[in-house]
């Protein structure tokens, strides 16, 4: 009896100790986190219906070589202020679709209307103007890592500048102040003069978000923003994207590999398979049949984080 209670006591202290250690680890992990895990609020189906359309994509086709279609007759609308996730297996055409939106990739045929303007064939200065309205975030961050965080964020204003202003980095004081506000909002103000190669992955991605926000965009495109990040940084990035969408009313379009992340954070999900839209609906409508159609496997066969 006495021995038993002794054993119990020892195990209890050990569990206590373990918990404490785990907590400490968590805290040290969380030092960087500005946002704590509040329940994410996503738009309901009815709210989604009422949102105005900001971009519509009609009959979009893309062939890299003759006869090999990457996108087949893609049609959908993007609502103003929604967070739209695009899911699908590798090679389904998610990246191509995203890059067609800001014409980084020229579609073979189709029509893209943005802000009531047909942008399918705009060129030169008009194309640059259109791109200033669409920010972009990448899986590999794509920062100029020999420049400072501030310099990288200021690159977001280059779309508004002429050649000489851009070459000699002539930014106005008000542009700099706005950039500093955005950097502070994203919680990377301590690193503002550090070179980007000194930052961690999560911090780099926040610089990427800041660069996109400085453009004062109406839409932000995110190409696998969390694919190279650990789960805790991934969460920070997704929560920032959600916040940008809900608070600033900026439309966010995200390519994702993680179905559960898409379900948690997005207002709407588009499922892409072999260049065709096989699902377009509210996250609550995702079920086994949808997963089967998008990935060609059972829901249980997917890795869930």
């Amino acid at each position, binding site marked *: 009896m006495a021995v038993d209670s002794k054993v119990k006591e020892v195990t209890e202290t050990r569990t206590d100790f373990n918990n404490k250690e785990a907590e400490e680890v968590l805290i040290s992990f969380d030092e960087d986190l500005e946002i704590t895990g509040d329940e994410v609020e996503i738009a309901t189906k009815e709210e989604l219906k009422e949102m105005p359309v900001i971009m519509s994509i009609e009959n979009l086709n893309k062939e890299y070589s003759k006869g090999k279609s990457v996108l087949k007759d893609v049609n959908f609308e993007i609502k103003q202020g929604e967070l739209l996730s695009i899911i699908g297996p590798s090679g389904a055409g998610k990246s191509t679709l995203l890059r067609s939106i*800001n014409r*980084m990739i020229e579609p073979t045929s189709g029509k893209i209307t943005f802000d009531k303007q047909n942008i399918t064939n705009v060129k030169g200065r008009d194309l*640059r*103007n*259109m*791109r*200033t309205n*669409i*920010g*972009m975030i*990448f899986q*590999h961050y*794509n*920062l*100029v*890592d*020999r*420049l400072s965080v501030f310099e990288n964020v200021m*690159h*977001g204003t*280059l*779309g*508004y*500048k002429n*050649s000489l202003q*851009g*070459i000699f*980095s002539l930014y106005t004081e008000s542009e700099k102040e706005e950039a500093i506000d955005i950097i502070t909002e994203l919680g990377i103000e301590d690193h503002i003069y550090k070179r980007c190669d000194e930052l961690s992955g999560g911090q780099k991605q926040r610089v*990427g978000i800041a*660069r*996109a926000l400085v*453009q004062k965009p109406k839409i932000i*495109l995110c190409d696998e923003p969390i694919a190279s990040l650990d789960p805790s940084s991934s969460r920070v990035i997704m929560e920032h994207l959600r916040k940008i969408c809900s608070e600033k009313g900026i439309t966010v379009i995200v390519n994702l590999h993680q179905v559960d992340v898409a379900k948690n954070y997005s207002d709407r999900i588009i499922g892409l398979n072999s260049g065709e839209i096989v699902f377009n609906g509210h996250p609550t409508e995702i079920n086994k049949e949808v997963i089967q159609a998008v990935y060609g496997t059972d829901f249980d066969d997917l890795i869930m984080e």
Partner: protein
Amino acid sequence: MTAVVEHNKNGGIKVSKPNRGQRVLKGLLIGSAIFTVIGFFLMDYTGLDLTHAIPMTIDNLGQMFLSPSLNNTTWPSALWQVAITLSLAFLATILGAVISLFLAFGTAVNLSKPWISNTIKAFITVVRAVPTVLWVLIFAIAAGLGAVAAVIGMIFHSIAYLVKAYSEAFEEVDQGKIEALRATGSSYPHILFQVVVPQTKSFLISWTFLRFEINFGVAVAMGAAAGAGGIGYELFMASTFYYDMQEVGAITLIILVVAIILELIANRLKMAA
């Protein structure tokens, strides 16, 4: 023993089976060895006494490098001439570097169109095929033999060298970073000066300085060969006009010291960049 194994004449097993290229190379090596030996027998050795010649050569070298002194020129004048040579090299490098930077933007395949890139590459190949001295002599027709022709000639080879070095550095720049700036609505010059140049700055500096060191050596030679002045001309005068071994040695040592100092500065710059 299986049939796949081949034997040599003595019945031993062959370890390797040379292909056509290796056989040609072997033939070439043997051929050149034979011609070298024949060449020695065919040379004109009249009046050459090796027992006398070798100690004389050693004596000459000893005079040059062990007791160097400036007899026909003074220290301030020699240093001034070094400064002239350095400025020839500097001028050729800096002008060449600026021109090369823009040509390299056109040459790098990731920043340019194939036909522009190939045109510049063809031009560079022609420039490289003609020796520096020939370029200097070509421009001497217009500019006269002297510093101007020498600098223009040196610029040509600097460009040939630097465009290749720069454009290869530019081609290493991650395509994603360029894509990111294009997506912000940046124009082509923005991308060049906000991504490509900052990202390759340390390469640009170290390649340019290496070319400066090479140009210093070329400028010494041009001083003598093209009358460009500077320490090279002094060296030429000391050796062929005054026939002064000690002065040749002194000037050679001065050039050596300057070259070493340049090397040290280059290392410092590379560290800093």
